[in-house]
């Protein structure tokens, strides 16, 4: 049973395929290779399948964010090649998943995401300049402003999902209505920590949203080899947790589904798992060579599903897009990112002492002693 429904007739909530609800079968019948049985609102050609969760103006804003993210991604790839960034993990192709998910969060919500989630982090409040600073190899990139509740990107695969369970659990105990979203890849679901995080969230009914970007690969290892479950979403059944599978290249669909999951959590209805089916168009990181493990054709195929193109087409139809506007967006984005890069690159280099001063609230006597040795040479 497909959940692709043409027209704009029905309410959003009914459309969201939560695994434990009616559209369960749709989720279970799909396979990561043929991502057809998943929630979708906008087709690759820009046609709309159902009522959208946003106004035209909001859609334009989402599009603008995706453009800005892509400019960042391209700029970062280029900078890394020039030796100005340490390794960089590009997200090209995943903009809809990341911007859509972030748009569902409020400032009081927590976010624990990964090395590939720069767009998600940024849209949720993590300043570009700090994201860049971190990638130049500077711990100060992790020092988000006081009002921002986003953990520095997780570099280990899988270890951070349980953090979002603890964060959400604390908020629940405090009686606040904050939720925590954790973003991770298909590969991360193989780690034991995924299992423990999902189970804890379900057992304690923490307001946690598990957001998986299934981009087809864990470095070189394709998702259909990583697991024999037909989807990632179906894994939620092991925890009695609802789940949804969504077209991760459809920003409206992602926003709708994540918003529903966030709302459920906020209403005290517990955690859920969302699988956003997408594709990493670029290499795993700047040191990866995808030619070793996948066909160019596959990439081409996915390029035709580009998350930006389909919104551009939709907006075009709605007279919400012009090539001048596109140029404007790109120029503005470039300028913002240039500015951020400049800030990060011009920031004074870290001092040797910083190493020691960052370990504890107050450096221990041992560290003070070592600091002295270090500065005396």
């Amino acid at each position: 049973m497909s959940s692709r429904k043409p027209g704009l007739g029905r309410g959003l909530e009914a459309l969201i395929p939560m695994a434990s609800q009616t559209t369960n079968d749709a989720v279970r019948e799909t396979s990561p290779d043929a991502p057809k049985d998943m929630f979708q609102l906008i087709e690759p050609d820009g046609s709309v399948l159902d009522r959208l969760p946003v106004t035209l103006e909001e859609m334009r804003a989402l599009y603008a964010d995706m453009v800005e993210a892509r400019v960042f991604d391209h700029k970062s790839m280029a900078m890394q090649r020039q030796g100005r960034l340490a390794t960089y993990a590009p997200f090209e192709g995943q903009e809809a998943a990341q911007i859509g998910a972030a748009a569902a969060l409020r400032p009081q919500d927590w976010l624990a995401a990964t090395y590939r989630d720069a767009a998600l982090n940024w849209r949720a409040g993590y300043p570009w300049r700090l994201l860049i600073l971190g990638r130049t190899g500077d711990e100060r990139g992790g020092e988000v402003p006081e009002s921002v509740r986003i953990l520095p990107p997780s570099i280990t695969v899988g270890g951070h999902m349980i953090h979002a369970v603890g964060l959400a659990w604390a908020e629940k105990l405090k009686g606040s209505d904050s939720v925590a979203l954790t973003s991770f890849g298909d590969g991360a679901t193989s780690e034991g920590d995924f299992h423990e995080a999902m189970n804890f969230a379900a057992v304690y009914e923490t307001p946690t949203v598990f957001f998986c970007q299934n981009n087809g690969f864990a470095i070189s290892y394709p998702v259909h080899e990583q697991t024999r479950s037909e989807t990632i979403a179906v894994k939620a059944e092991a925890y009695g947790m609802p789940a949804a599978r969504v077209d991760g290249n459809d920003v409206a669909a992602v926003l709708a589904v994540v918003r529903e999951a966030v709302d459920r959590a906020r209403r005290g209805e517990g955690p859920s798992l969302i699988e956003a089916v997408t594709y990493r168009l670029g290499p795993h990181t700047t040191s990866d060579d995808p030619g070793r493990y996948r066909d160019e054709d596959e990439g081409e195929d996915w390029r035709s599903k580009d998350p930006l193109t389909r919104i551009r087409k939709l907006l075009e139809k709605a007279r919400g897009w012009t090539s001048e506007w596109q140029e404007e967006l790109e120029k503005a984005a470039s300028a913002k990112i240039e500015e951020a890069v400049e800030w990060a690159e011009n920031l004074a280099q870290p001092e040797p002492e910083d190493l020691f001063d960052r370990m504890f609230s107050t450096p221990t006597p041992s560290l003070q002693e070592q600091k002295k040795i270090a500065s005396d040479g």
Partner: protein
Amino acid sequence: MGEVNLAQALNGALDTALGSDSRVVLLGEDIGRTGGVFRITDGLLDTHGGERVFDTPVAESGIVGAAFGMAVAGMRPVAEIQFMGFSYPAYDQVINHVARIRNRSNHRFAAPMVIRVPYGGGIGAAEHHSESTESIYAHIPGIKVVVPSTPRDARGLLLAAIEDPDPVVFLEPIRLYRAVKEDIPDIYYTVDIGPVRVEREGEDITLISWGAMMKETRQAAVRLESEGVSVEVLDVRTLSPLDRGGLADSVEKTGRAVIIHEAPLTGGFGGEIAASIQERCLYSLLSPIVRVTGWDTVFPLKRSETHYLPAVDRIVNAAEKTLEG
């Protein structure tokens, strides 16, 4: 509080912390209904309720990782790992996240949390129930590692650990839970994390130990004193950060040291202490610093336990040899 044993002192400290700071929560396997396998959390679920004391699934990485998230969000979680031999599934969370969030975020986030871990052998337990792997924790930058050996220290150090703005691994000597009694103050007090405690002053030799082995160390000191040796006994109490000055001061004075621990020799924390002391007072050393430790073997099962655990005799012999040197 009157005269209490180490287990009671810990129970009392947790009760006090729960009562005085609403951010404190406890989580761990079987800590609620049963009060934990060693009954350290006995009665706390009843007193403080199911929103403060949580039984958890059997998932150590989950326990520590969830506690970490809670700590970052402003709580003061105290996690219990049932035995040190079951702490390893959580090692990744400790070294890669708990110990690093402050550094990773340049102080924006911190993980003020305590991980309580009963450790050590001597009770004829099953495999994995007698571990002393303190050195794999003491090697992790960004956490503190504390080991009390008296009821008074147990209460004061545990309250200090819970108060601490940074994460603390709190090791509890199983063998001493009910073996030492002491009158301790019935008030909120803390004992500083850091300084070694000079438990006995002496001139001829320094015996250095911590946690469970303090028992045999004390007995060895008594034996040596009865032979006319003036023994200084140090209870290290905090393995990290290590009170290198405190250790050196004593050996500077006595010129001789024996370090006693239960963990295997190779890579045991005694190596760090010996290395540090010789760095600081080589020219005062009258004899090599000797380590009396467990062997480089798995901690054996009941029938062989006494073949492994450093006995009072071994400490006395080592001290005597050192005194000849």
